[in-house]
């Protein structure tokens, strides 16, 4: 079978470029320029899939984005794509498509039996049943429903393709490359404005590609091609075919999806991305998105072979396809007569034009149809159809005057094609996304844009203007207005509109639902949303049950919830709802138009922002490479990579930590501290500023000294901590936690700029400027002595908590004598580009003392042995300084951020959790899991819940130095409860007995750091 339904000539396909593809395993042929849908029709295939609920046969219905059927699974393996619309899938060599939602085959689908039960499955049936027995919902009903639901299958392997993003600004964005859009782009582009013209189709021209209208005496397509050629010649105009504007957001931001390689293969054949998301910021937006023909709603209107009239014309004129052998045209307006003529002109027999309008009409097209001697049944309606997997005939009866009943004899027409037209719906999605309002227009019986948001203009069919001439004039004028708005010329049209033949038309007769001989509830199904099997009877049922809001009706009947978002059905649905409610459709309104206009590949939203190198920034210290070379494992701290620990070959984590901490306590360890946040604070009011942002006093600290400080949020809770040093009278060097750096700088700037503008202080981030090499251990001074010059390192000249400027390995250095380990400690800070060089020198100098690099884990152990806290681990945003016994750091002489909150009742509550140490009782070496909760009841695991919680473990380690495990914890009234025993019940049933101790486990007098 080879394209039996392909017309001999015509269409925008290239018959010299045949393409082979497969559908459900069958090898078929089409041409370049085909969509999968047109190629299938050319091969006489109309049955494509099955409907969602009842698994009824579903054929190709529309010719584009509006088609609710024709969903296929394309390709296989990692590249497979579910739920593609055949009408929007460009044909390429080797395309492989399969039907979805049917088994074993689309022709014989077991689940079609569902249809037999359809009387039991009215709208919302699932709310009323599947409730008994209770346990069956989870176990029986739902799993089956889930298995039956869903259309296609997801890939099972990661996506082989790339998706890129592009941020672009423009003066005028024109959405839609039909006559109106092209005109707008020309008008604005000629003025030198930066214009983007995008269209979802593979070529520009819109309706002109599918009809036979003339412009300036030549076929519309030729006019379009010349216009596009001119646009291409304009330097500041960007043309984007195969690009769908899917979302219109605030302040001129519009998202476009460009399908870069989808038309050449399943996956990109080269280094190009498969798709690109354009993030356009447009000064002005012109919407020329056209209109979609809505079908008439009549009994059994869902059979394959029943299509909107315009789709029939599109397949004939654009794709050179004969959609059927014998057609019936069913309409309430003039436009479908063109389809009848298109059919006739291509030798397709038109059995009848059934027109619901009573009078014989006056339109030009009607006259021509008469001349062609096509039988016209005015005042008649199609009341039912015949057929199994394809329509085989229709029944026609006379309509009564009110259009709400039929009578008289039944006329039978055999046909394999029904082209129906119920009028046209402007595509107002993008107008509505940002909040544009709409109004009901009687003359076209549909909704049109009313108030637009921002600099947005609607032109052409999407504005309710369906005449070609009018579309182009509106386009030109919208282009002029937009260009003028962007500062290019006046609002007067400069370009000339091409000549169009005037066409006299007769008004349409609105008809939301075609009556049948039986009442709605008993008549054969009249489908509104064919994808979800939603019918007019469902709408009436919803209203009957009290679901009266259009949103309730939509949700109760699942109308418009399909992958087509109700592009064909929603307005009909609103009309039928209005009928059922006895209200005016203008009052009933439509449901909300939500992005995306058509489904958008999720990968295109993600772009390249995923994976180990790009999901977030990866921040590295100047010595990163060295750490890697020395076997470090890394810990993510914020965006930083910090050495976690340095296992030797064959060494367990525990062994490595024991070794690292032993060396730091007995020899010397070296830590990369470069990630700590650093802020330069300078100005006459620097001391006053620190006084306000830290809890303690800073004015009296002498130049050359450093001090530990804590910062609170205004709520009194600990926010961050760090050591700050006084560089000069008016100058401090502040450090913050690694994770807190950005937050702290932001916090300080906020207060400086918004609360205390009178303070003369400048804040500058210098985090990345300094490489910080931290040495700890009894031999720290020995090593520093070998590296640092220009500083008297004696304890007298360079005591604990001071800093000095000097040189390290010949490099200017700022050396701090501070310690986060409790050992004798020095921190050498040098300009980051010298960091590795100085680190090497330190490493060299330390060899004779057994210098050992240690990471964050050992750092945590060392500080925990000393009871030093880590903001963010031992604090959780709900603890204040008193909870940590830091009363000494709370200045009484001055106000500071958060101070007022410390006197609130809850802050001074007596049973607050306080910071303590814990040791295990039964097995001193057992490590309590961090996050363990503490209770008084040894049998808490079994006890009735809730069990009173007395606190929890914030940090917990094995201390090789002490030979037993240690933990830090927050415990209710902890400081009064020294030596009390609490229990940490574990999920596995274990109960760990712990004793409350001081959080300072090691060298309580702090002698070691002062040597």
């Amino acid at each position, binding site marked *: 079978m080879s394209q039996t339904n392909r017309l001999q000539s015509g269409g925008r396909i290239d018959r010299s470029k045949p393409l082979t593809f497969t559908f459900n395993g069958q090898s078929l042929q089409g041409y370049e320029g085909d969509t999968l849908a047109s190629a299938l029709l050319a091969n006489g295939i109309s049955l494509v899939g099955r409907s969602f609920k009842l698994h009824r046969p579903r054929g190709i219905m529309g010719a584009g984005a509006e088609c609710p059927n024709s969903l296929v699974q394309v390709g296989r393996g990692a590249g497979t794509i579910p739920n593609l619309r055949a009408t929007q899938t460009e044909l390429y060599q080797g395309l492989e498509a399969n039907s979805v939602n049917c088994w074993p085959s689309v022709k014989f689908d077991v689940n079609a039996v569902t249809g037999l039960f359809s009387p039991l499955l009215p709208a919302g049936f699932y709310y009323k049943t599947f409730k008994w027995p209770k346990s069956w919902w989870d176990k029986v009903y739902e799993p089956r429903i889930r298995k039956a639901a869903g259309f296609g299958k997801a890939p099972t392997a990661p996506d082989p393709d790339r998706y890129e993003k592009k941020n672009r*600004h423009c003066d005028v964005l024109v959405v839609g490359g039909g006559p109106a859009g092209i005109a707008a782009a020309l008008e604005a582009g000629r003025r030198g404005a930066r214009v983007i013209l995008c269209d979802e189709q593979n070529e520009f021209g819109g309706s002109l590609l599918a009809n036979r209208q003339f412009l300036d005496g030549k076929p519309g397509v030729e006019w379009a091609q010349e216009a596009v050629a001119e646009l291409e010649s304009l330097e500041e105009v960007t043309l984007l075919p195969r690009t769908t504007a899917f979302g219109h957001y605030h302040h001129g931001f519009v998202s476009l999806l460009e399908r870069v390689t989808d038309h050449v293969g399943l996956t990109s054949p080269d280094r190009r991305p498969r798709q690109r998301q354009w993030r356009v910021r447009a000064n002005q937006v012109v919407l020329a998105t056209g209109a979609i023909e809505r079908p008439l709603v009549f009994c059994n209107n869902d059979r394959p072979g029943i299509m909107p009239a315009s789709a029939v014309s599109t397949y004939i004129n654009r794709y050179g396809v004969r959609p059927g052998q014998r057609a019936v045209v069913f309409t309430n307006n003039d436009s479908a007569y063109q389809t009848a003529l298109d059919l006739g002109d291509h030798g397709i027999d038109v059995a009848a034009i059934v027109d619901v309008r009573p009078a014989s009409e006056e339109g030009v097209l009607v006259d021509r149809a008469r001349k062609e001697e096509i039988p016209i049944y005015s005042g008649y309606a199609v009341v039912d159809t015949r057929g199994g997997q394809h329509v085989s005939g229709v029944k026609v009866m006379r309509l009564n005057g009110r259009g709400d009943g039929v009578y008289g004899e039944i006329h039978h027409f055999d046909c394999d094609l029904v082209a129906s037209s119920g009028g046209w719906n402007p595509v107002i999605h993008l107008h509505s996304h940002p909040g544009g309002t709409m109004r009901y227009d009687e003359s076209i019986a549909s909704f049109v844009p009313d108030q637009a948001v921002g600099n947005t203009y609607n032109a052409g069919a999407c504005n309710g203007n369906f005449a070609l001439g009018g579309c182009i004039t509106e386009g030109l004028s919208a282009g002029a207005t937009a260009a003028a708005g962007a500062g290019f010329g006046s609002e007067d049209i400069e370009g000339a509109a091409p000549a169009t033949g005037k066409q006299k038309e007769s008004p349409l007769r609105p008809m939301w639902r075609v009556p049948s001989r039986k009442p709605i509830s008993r008549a054969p199904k009249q489908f509104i949303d064919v994808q979800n099997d939603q019918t007019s009877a469902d709408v009436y049922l919803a209203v009957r049950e009290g679901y009266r809001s259009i949103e309730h009706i939509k949700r109760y009947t699942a109308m418009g919830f399909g992958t087509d978002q109700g592009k064909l059905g929603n307005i009909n649905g609103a009309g039928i709802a209005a009928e059922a409610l006895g209200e005016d459709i203008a009052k009933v309104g439509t449901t909300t138009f939500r992005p995306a206009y058509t489904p958008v590949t999720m990968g295109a939203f993600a772009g*390249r922002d995923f994976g180990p190198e790009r999901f977030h920034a990866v921040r590295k210290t100047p010595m990163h*490479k060295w750490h890697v070379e020395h076997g470090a494992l890394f810990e993510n701290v914020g965006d930083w990579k910090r050495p976690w620990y340095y296992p030797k070959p064959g060494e367990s984590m525990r062994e490595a930590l024991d070794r690292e901490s032993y060396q730091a306590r007995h020899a010397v360890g070296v830590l990369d501290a470069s990630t700590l946040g650093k802020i330069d604070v300078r100005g006459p009011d620097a001391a006053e500023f620190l006084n306000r942002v830290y809890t303690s006093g800073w004015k009296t600290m002498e130049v050359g000294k450093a001090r530990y400080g804590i910062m609170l949020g205004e709520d009194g809770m600990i926010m961050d901590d760090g050591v700050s040093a006084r560089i000069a009278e008016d100058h401090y060097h502040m450090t913050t936690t690694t994770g807190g750096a950005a937050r702290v700088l932001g916090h300080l700037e906020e207060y400086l700029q918004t609360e205390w503008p009178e303070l003369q202080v400048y804040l*500058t981030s210098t*985090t990345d400027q300094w*490489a910080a090499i931290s040495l700890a251990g009894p031999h720290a001074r020995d090593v520093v002595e070998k590296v640092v010059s220009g500083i008297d390192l004696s304890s007298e000249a360079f005591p604990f908590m001071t800093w000095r400027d000097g040189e390290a390995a*010949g490099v200017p250095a700022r050396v701090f004598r501070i310690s986060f380990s409790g050992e004798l400690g020095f921190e050498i800070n040098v300009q980051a*580009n010298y960091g590795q060089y100085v680190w090497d020198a330190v490493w060299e100098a330390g060899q004779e003392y057994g210098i050992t690099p240690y990471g964050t884990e050992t750092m945590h152990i060392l500080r925990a042995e000393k009871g030093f806290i880590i903001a963010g681990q031992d604090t959780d945003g709900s603890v204040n300084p008193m909870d940590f016994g830091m009363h000494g750091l709370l200045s009484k002489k001055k106000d500071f951020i958060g101070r007022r909150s410390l006197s609130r009742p809850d802050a001074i509550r007596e049973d607050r959790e306080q910071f303590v140490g814990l040791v295990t009782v039964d097995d001193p070496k057992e490590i309590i899991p961090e996050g363990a909760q503490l209770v008084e009841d040894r049998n808490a695991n079994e006890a009735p819940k809730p069990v009173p919680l007395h606190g929890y473990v914030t940090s917990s380690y094995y201390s090789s130095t002490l030979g037993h495990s240690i933990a830090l914890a927050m415990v209710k009234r902890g400081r009064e409860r020294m030596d009390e025993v609490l229990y940490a019940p574990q999920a596995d049933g274990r109960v760990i007995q712990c004793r409350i101790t001081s959080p300072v486990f090691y060298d309580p007098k702090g002698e070691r750091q002062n040597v």
Partner: protein
Amino acid sequence: MSEAIRQESPLVERITPERKAASPADAGVTLRERPFLGCVNLRGNPEDASFTDAVQGVLGVALPTEPNTVVESGDITVFWLAPTEWFVRTVADGERDLIARLEEALAGQHIATNDVTGNFTTIELAGPHARDVLEKGCTLDLHPRAFAPGQCAQTLLSHAGILIRPVHDGQAFELVVRRSFADYTFIWLEDAAVEYGGVAISD
């Protein structure tokens, strides 16, 4: 400082002789790092003539007070960062002397100078697709009509903050990147350039 003393660029793992040699022939983007340039962050009050005059005396050029503009004079380039903040760039190893002269000239005033030589590195992006690559991660309007030589801006390139300006008559862009983000930024640029034939490294 003695010759033996070695500075290391944050791109030490990326811009290697091997990588340079492996630069693709059809690369749509050319990247050049200008490491170790002396950088100073200057704070002060532009409404105070004693400040601006003194600075001009040292830099040999008036501070740009028009937001997001750059001025150049000899070895000195001055970027506007904020109403009271400028980024001053000079030759390698020129920063300490520059700071000393600024501090001397501005003695007694409410100002701040910070050596930020190690805080940043400078990257130049050229080639036919330089702008295409940047547009993938930068929401700034990079069109010459909107962003011409003489202008500069602090903005985001994907997840990294950058200071950017057009250079070489708009044929290329200069990016000043924070040191700890440099490696990430380079990797990001290389990835973004894939569809344009990748990145060629030049000197």
